[in-house]
């Protein structure tokens, strides 16, 4: 499926692998269409819990492993502008809020994206996801000409709060790139991928749809998550 033309797409997530499951098909498609895409990844997932038993990594060796996985994922998607923003996993929400907005505003000013992709505030489960979403929404809220803001939401109450996704991308055409991105993060995704591939081999359509369809909500400025910041 061809996606609407964009000037530049900015993707902002806090962890290596946040892009893989929900957005890597969309990223790959924009890149195939010749749209510049920047992925700003705020941390290196330093606090990831999947270290194996027997262990394949330690708390101290994990960041370097995940950095290489992130670079491999970018390569699988054809993405060349990967920004590693240097924050620490699980601490994003404790950073100074205005500093976070500034970090996002700087990226937006530099890249002038027509579309930004991040998480949906209050519906993205992990505290780092929420902090990232808040920072992006706040930075965009302050802009005179706001770019489109497409958000990933996966909290258990998402359907209740937002209804069905506004935007569904059929990413069957870039299935290989998407599998490549997911496999790149093997230290964290091995168990999940094994289960997924087992279901796909059995012809499970829910899993196939979950894999090939990427779902977004256009941020609802009329139901903004806060009055002001």
């Amino acid at each position, binding site marked *: 499926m061809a996606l609407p033309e964009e000037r530049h797409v900015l993707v902002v997530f806090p962890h290596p692998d946040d892009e893989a499951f929900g957005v890597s098909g969309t990223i790959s498609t924009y890149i195939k269409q010749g749209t510049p895409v920047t992925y700003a990844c705020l941390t290196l997932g330093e*606090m990831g*819990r*999947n*270290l*194996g*038993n*027997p*262990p394949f990594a*330690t*708390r*101290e*060796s994990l*960041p370097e492993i995940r950095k290489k996985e992130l670079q491999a994922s970018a390569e699988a998607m054809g993405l060349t502008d990967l920004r590693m923003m*240097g924050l*620490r996993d*699980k601490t994003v929400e404790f950073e100074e809020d205005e500093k976070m907005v500034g970090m996002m505003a700087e990226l937006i000013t530099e890249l002038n994206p027509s579309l930004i992709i991040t998480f949906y505030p209050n519906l993205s*489960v*992990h*505290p*780092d996801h929420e902090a990232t979403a808040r920072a992006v929404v706040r930075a965009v809220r302050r802009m005179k000409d706001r770019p489109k803001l497409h958000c990933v939401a996966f*909290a*258990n109450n998402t359907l209740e709060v937002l209804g069905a996704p506004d935007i569904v991308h059929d990413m069957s055409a870039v299935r290989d790139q998407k599998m490549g991105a997911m496999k790149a993060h093997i230290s964290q995704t091995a*168990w999940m991928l094994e289960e997924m591939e087992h279901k796909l081999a059995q012809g499970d359509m829910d899993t196939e749809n979950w894999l090939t369809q990427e779902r977004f909500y256009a941020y609802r400025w009329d139901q903004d998550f806060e009055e002001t910041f």
Partner: protein
Amino acid sequence: MELVEVKKLQVQLDAFAGKDVYLHLETTNGSYATHFNEGFFNAGAFIRNVVINYELGKVVGESPHRVGLKLPHGWVYAQGITHYEMDEQGRLLLAGHDGSGKLAVALEISETPFSY
């Protein structure tokens, strides 16, 4: 990392006693615990690069082990320790990994600061 061998780990704990060392201590259920199990009460703690100087360090029990450090004015301890490693930078890394390979607890000691 290797499974804890009490005698070997005890020697390594002794080697850091009486020195200023940087501490990393964390316990975690993961940030998704409540997402996958809505009634779950998710608690954990994290401290990194705080300098301590312990007078006595002990590893006790069958696996998963407890490890305690006695300070002049207090204590540090961790329970659930299964694995350990003296890494190439001379840092003593202890961790508790559950049956599915997820880290639940980590206690690390180093004479130089850990990265950010």
